[in-house]
């Protein structure tokens, strides 16, 4: 009897939490199609807000910036992160533990600390803030994410395969190209997708390290929110959410492929 009561309780509890997690997202999406501008009451279906988005030059510019930042930071961090993961798995060297800790630190330290540190650094070396400065900062923490994901993939990798390739006459580069990379590719792509999502979604670091004319999408959304809650924000938020959810979904599928 009491076991059944517990079971019912756990089910309800889980139901409530999942509702809590998804309720705001659903509300946001639903209201992005609502005709009413001010009040949160349903008055009818419309695509209006989406249409205005596509006419908003500033917003489109921000999207372009975000794509640029995402693209370049993803490429760089994927290359560096993958090499790092391979290196960390393969080699022993003095100071490995320290590098290991430093490598994971960007994931754990609050992004505001990272953001002001980067800002101070840029000002210190007199770098003019812009897309470039955002990209550099994004690479710093994305290296960590890519390395973690690729290392997870490498955990199931048989190192003898590389030895076999070399034994058959493949140089280290060819071994990497024809054996190692193809086998860890799902991990690399998943890492890249996650890096892109993180970069695409980042507000904090861009907030501190962007310069004139380098507004990214989250910065634009932030200023829109500060200006007042409007259905256009709901619309752009919906697009953003669906975009990253799709990327994440693909990444997870890839990580599970054998």
């Amino acid at each position: 009897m009491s076991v059944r009561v517990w079971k019912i309780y756990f089910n309800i509890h889980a139901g409530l939490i999942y509702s809590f997690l998804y309720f705001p997202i659903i509300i946001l999406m639903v209201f992005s199609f609502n005709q009413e501008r001010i009040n949160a009451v349903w008055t009818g279906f419309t695509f209006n807000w989406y249409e205005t988005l596509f006419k908003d030059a500033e917003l489109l510019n921000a999207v372009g910036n975000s794509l640029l930042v995402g693209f370049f930071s993803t490429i760089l961090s994927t290359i560096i992160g993958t090499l790092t993961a391979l290196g960390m798995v393969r080699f022993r060297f003095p100071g490995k533990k320290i590098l290991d800790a430093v490598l994971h630190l960007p994931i754990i330290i609050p992004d505001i600390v990272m953001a002001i540190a980067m800002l101070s650094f840029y000002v210190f070396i007199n770098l003019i803030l812009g897309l470039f400065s955002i990209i550099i900062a994004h690479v710093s923490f994305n290296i960590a994410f890519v390395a973690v994901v690729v290392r997870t993939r490498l955990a199931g990798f048989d190192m003898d395969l590389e030895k076999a390739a070399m034994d058959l006459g493949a140089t280290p580069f060819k071994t990497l190209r024809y054996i190692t990379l193809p086998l860890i590719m799902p991990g690399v792509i998943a890492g890249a997708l996650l890096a892109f999502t993180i970069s695409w979604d980042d507000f904090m670091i861009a907030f501190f390290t962007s310069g004139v004319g380098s507004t990214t999408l989250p910065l634009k959304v932030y200023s829109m929110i500060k200006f007042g809650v409007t259905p256009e924000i709901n619309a752009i938020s919906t697009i953003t959410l669906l975009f990253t959810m799709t990327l994440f979904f693909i990444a997870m599928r890839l990580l599970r492929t054998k």
Partner: protein
Amino acid sequence: MSSCEIGISIVNISKKYHSTIACDKINLSVLKNELFFILGPSGCGKTTLLRIIAGLLETDCGSVFLNNICLDNLPPYERDINTVFQNYALFPHLNVYNNVAFGLKMRNLSNTDIRNKVTKILSIVDLEGFEKRKPYQLSGGQQQRVALARALVNEPSVLLLDEPLGALDVKLRKQMQLELKHLQKKLEMTFVYVTHDQEEALTMADRIAVMNAGHIEQIGTPDEVYNKPNTRFVAEFVGESNLFESNNLRFNNDSVTLTLDNNLVIHSKITRELNQDQKLILAVRPEKIRLYKEPQPIKKAYNQIEGRIEEILYKGIMLYYVVKINSGQTVKILEQSYNQSAPHQEGGTVYLEWEKENTFIIEE
């Protein structure tokens, strides 16, 4: 048969992992076109030694020579040596064809050449029609043959095989053993073949190096290793042995005589140079001893001892006797059961006899 030219020689190779010594100052030479075996128990350093020859593992000291050229600064991909890995290490993302073609592609051969060679080798290992399959779609035996083909197709001067038949069932293993031996003779290639299966080594090898805990115990033909083991380890690891130990040891011109308790005397012939300061042990294989119910006429060339049967065990067509001799120790004896007119009984008195030549001398 193999020529007398030296193919591979290993000079003073040592390798340590943390505190484990996997190879301890190993020296050996493998002749050209020889089927050379490295036989040893699990964990004795066989795989380590093969990897050092292939260049996949750096040594702590020592050198490897191939055709008198030092390989020490040659990376694995520039050595004319290929390996069949213990766990096959087939590339899981490539099909059979591409696995086998991998080495040829790395050498930038033309596509037609590659196709011809791959097709030919696949027919040799009896895998025609499997080209498109991925490794996980193959049975253990088929995977093993792909691994073999992948290495053979490159026609290396030396092929290293690391327990290549380990995963196969007995019947398939026996069949593959024969095939491999024929293949090796046909292709005229040097094989260095690692196994922990003494039977495999004894039936296939031209020569065997018996390895134990990182060092080589003895190198010789199967006949030498089996009939004239030099060390206690070889005597016990390769086949079974009855060991006789005593401090009462006498050297004659061409023989050694050992006196056990109760004045039991064991004779042996000296067939190699012995270090007379070392402790010596005499030994005999169980199947070299014959059992009689009555005392036999004394013959000069034979050892003769009396004993009592403690136990009789059936081992297929063989009978296995445990006999207590007068010195108090037990001796194992193996006889074929079909040549027995009057079977022995447990508890019965028996007379053991074997040729002095069959007593071998172990140095400790």
